[in-house]
């Protein structure tokens, strides 16, 4: 079934749904920027940029609350059904995932500050760079699939999470090797591990967003490995 959110008899309803979606996507833009900045701050030992990420974090929290409030108002005023209801539900869920991506970006920014302070030669940055690129692409593609109601692209993006998880595990093994080789590096490598962990989580959230694309378009809840629910 095609998705049309601009054909309600009530024009106000069209506008409410449209602006709800736009708000969430703008939040998505902000969060994507945060991830990019946090990774950038880490790579370039730029603690100023890292501080900026921590400040913008508050704005993201505010976005989530606004999206929630507007979604609640739509439910109260319009009692949305079918695809409208799925739109509202998916926006609420995605906003929550985006907020958590924002939290992970902040954690990466904090690690950037900690690692900059230590000032020793970076190890594990190649792995960080690699996984960061993969999850940033996932996040972009997931939001893009949502704007285009593109289930196929969402499923493709969703599948990329497996590779990210594998890369994460192998990076963790490598970091353990470093720590065994040089116990003095443990505290610094732990920071790298936390960063990797945060990035891996961002991949999970991008995956959740993809699942909401499927929910919105197909009405199928495929979360927690229930892809069989897709018609």
């Amino acid at each position, binding site marked *: *079934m*095609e998705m*049309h*959110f*601009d*054909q*309600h*008899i*009530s*024009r106000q*309803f*069209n*506008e409410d749904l*449209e602006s709800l*979606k*736009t708000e969430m*996507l*703008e939040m*998505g*833009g902000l969060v*994507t*920027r945060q991830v*990019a900045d946090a990774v950038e701050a880490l790579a370039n030992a730029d603690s100023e940029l890292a501080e900026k990420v921590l400040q913008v974090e508050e704005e993201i929290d505010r976005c989530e609350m606004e999206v929630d409030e507007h979604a609640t108002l739509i439910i109260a005023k319009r*009692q*949305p*059904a*079918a*695809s*409208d*209801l*799925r739109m509202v539900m998916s926006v609420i869920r995605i906003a929550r995932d985006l907020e958590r991506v924002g939290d992970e970006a902040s954690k990466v920014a904090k690690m950037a500050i900690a690692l900059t302070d230590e000032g020793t030669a970076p190890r594990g940055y190649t792995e960080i760079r690699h996984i960061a690129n993969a999850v*940033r*692409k996932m996040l*972009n593609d997931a*939001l*893009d699939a949502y*704007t*285009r109601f593109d289930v196929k692209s969402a499923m493709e993006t969703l599948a990329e999470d497996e590779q990210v998880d594998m890369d994460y595990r192998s990076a963790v093994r490598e970091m353990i090797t470093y720590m065994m080789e040089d116990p003095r590096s443990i505290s610094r490598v732990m920071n790298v591990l936390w960063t990797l962990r945060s990035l891996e989580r961002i991949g999970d959230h991008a995956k959740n967003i993809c699942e909401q694309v499927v929910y919105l378009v197909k*009405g*199928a809840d495929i979360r927690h490995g229930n892809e069989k629910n897709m018609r």
Partner: protein
Amino acid sequence: MNTMTLNAGEAVPAENKATKLAAEPPSVKNQAVKKPEEIAGTVGSPFCDEAKLRMRNVNVFYGETQAIHDVSLDIGRNQVVAMIGPSGCGKSTFLRCLNRMNDTIEGCRVEGELTLDGEAIYGSKVDVVPLRARVGMVFQKPNPFPKSIYDNVAYGPKIHGIASRRAELDEVVENSLRRAGLWNEVKDRLDKPGTGLSGGQQQRLCIARAIAVNPEVILMDEPCSALDPIATARIEELIDELRENYTIAIVTHSMQQAARVSQRTAYFHLGKLVEVNDTETVFTNPQHELTEAYITGRFG
């Protein structure tokens, strides 16, 4: 490096259409109107295993005009089936076939197979009076008899010979009023006229009157459309309780009501049964675009 591409132009492809819509009157946009012949068959699951009422290939005509086109539907035992659809879609006409209320309309012709527990509703030997006792009806506007509350409920059992002695009648009246959730409000004024009650109370009196004759099926034609939200909530609560003992078909214009009270929902459009599904499915993920358009308030 991926740059963020979710700018307004790309993120919101629907925006252009919305702006265009604002410039044109809705009627111009409304080109998606379907003709009856364009709706092929019924999607979803119109049949069920334990059918109390079974309708197959039902056609209804008012003179030359065909009001119902080839509708097949089962209504399961102890189930609430909601019938929804825009005005003039045939849902009330279809409901009225189930206890032959259409017989009273001149020029109305019903074709097809309609059975209640396997017995033909339109059989030549069927007496409509006991049929309508088995298949009771509650109407849009509460219509108590201009009699006392007691007599409103006792009238049916008396004429159907269900109860005749005063003690028996007292029991039937009390039971029916209790099941309709009205007893506590009226027990001290049973001799007062039914028309003196509030709208919600009158409707519950009509439900008590309908259940006093031990029906098996209750048909409700927009039973809450003249009631306030509190009275409506009471009736909806009642419908859920009545389901234990009766099979219920309800026509309603309130989508939320259909979603709240029914287990299955049937969507009618231009005399055709477009979709029947579990109520949950209809309201979260309808299978037919016309159902989707109707329940979400879109042009369709």
